């Protein structure tokens, strides 16, 4: 069974089809890099896979189940464009809150563990609104990984990250892959993405123009995929 299966998904905004009959699969332990120009539908597709939005037609399955089922949501970790943590709460309060919402056995202990792993232990009681951008981003990474999700959905995860946050994220993603977790990441930073990716999907105007294994040829020349399957 695929970890993530996208089957004939359409999404309309008014009459405009943002996604058109998209079929994708990601096996457990694989990393799928979702690439495409701005407006190609990457974020829309990731939001549908994460269960934030319903497809107009078609369906998404995470380990065979719809994404909105409670148990399925427990298996998904998502990093979107925003950091999804509260400015008015401290780093520890934020992670403890999400630990509670995900039903972790000891939310405070898990929160402290992830603060340490992301290098934020020293500022654990500081309010997030007082954090630097890099610290906020590392906290967002900790929030997404806190409940040890089996599927990680990352929407342009490397955009605007500082060096330290990129290093933390890459380490965590490699570790997740070694633990046979599934990663789907949308990105414009092809080189970073293709270093991690086992598979690549190119979205072009809402359609999956290419979906297949990431070859060494693609990894060494990221522009090749666009040249061959995209609009050039």
């Amino acid at each position, binding site marked *: 069974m695929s970890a993530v299966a996208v089957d004939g998904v359409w999404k309309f905004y008014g009459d405009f089809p943002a996604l058109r009959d998209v079929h994708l699969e990601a096996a457990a332990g694989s990393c799928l890099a979702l690439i495409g120009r701005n407006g190609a539908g990457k974020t829309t597709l990731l939001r549908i896979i*994460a*269960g*934030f*939005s*319903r497809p107009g037609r078609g369906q998404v399955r995470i380990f065979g189940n719809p994404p*909105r089922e*409670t*148990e399925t*949501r*427990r298996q*998904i970790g*998502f990093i*979107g*464009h*925003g*950091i*999804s*943590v*509260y*400015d*008015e*709460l401290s780093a520890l*309060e934020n992670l403890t*809150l*999400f630990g*509670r*919402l*995900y*039903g972790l056995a000891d939310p405070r202990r898990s929160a402290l563990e992830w603060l340490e792993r992301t290098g934020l232990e020293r500022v654990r009681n500081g*309010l997030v609104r007082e954090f630097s951008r890099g610290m906020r981003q590392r906290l967002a990474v900790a*929030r997404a990984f806190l409940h040890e999700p089996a599927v990680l959905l990352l929407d342009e995860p490397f955009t605007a990250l500082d060096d330290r946050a990129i290093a933390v994220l890459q380490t965590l993603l490699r570790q997740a892959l070694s633990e046979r977790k599934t990663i789907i990441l949308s990105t414009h930073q092809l080189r970073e993405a293709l270093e991690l990716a086992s598979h690549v999907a190119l979205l072009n105007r809402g359609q999956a123009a290419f979906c297949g294994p990431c070859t060494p040829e693609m990894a060494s020349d990221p522009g090749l995929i666009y040249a061959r399957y995209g609009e050039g």
Partner: protein
Amino acid sequence: MGFFRQVLVMAAKDLRAELRTKEALNASLAFALVILLLFSFAFDPTEETTREISGGLLWIVFAFAGALVLNRSFARELPNDCLDALVAAPISGAALFLGKAVANFLLVLAVELVSLPVFGIFYNVRWTSQFGELMLVLALGTWALTVIGTIFSALTVNIRLREVMLPMLTYPILVPALLGAMQLTTGLMAGQPIGPDTVAWLKMLIGFDVVYTAVSLVLVESVLVG
């Protein structure tokens, strides 16, 4: 984690965030007190007139001051895309909604409980004569206000003019509940307990709360996931 624990976690989060910033609470309280003060100077009412308008005046103030709290309910989730993280979490939309409604209820109730003594002083009204029944009406009317306000706060969260849209959508629906709360409060302020002639308003208020809470709990998942 059980449903009610999820509700408590959500309510505690919202209350903690609001008490740290006091954005909505300060605005709501200031609005309520200023309106009460202005009306006391504008009308110079006699004791009889005050009794007649007390229910209407108080609930108009509560409804408008409450809107300032309710507007922030889901808008608080917009910075940093926090709503995505809540929708992604394995808690039901109903628990998320109810947690927010409970937090809003407590905040609006706090504003009302501060406003009542101020009303008593400015308008020379002995508002404590039917204290227990007044608190019951206050709780039922405030729950009606918060349950409708919270569901419409979720519905309008992504609309650019949500501060305008929220009152426009909520007040027409709230008319029956506000009418009931006003009628009951006017009687209680005059020292008359709820009797056979006013109990129908109480039943209507309870029915309103039950029906709209149930409808909101059923619909909230569709409101949150587009």
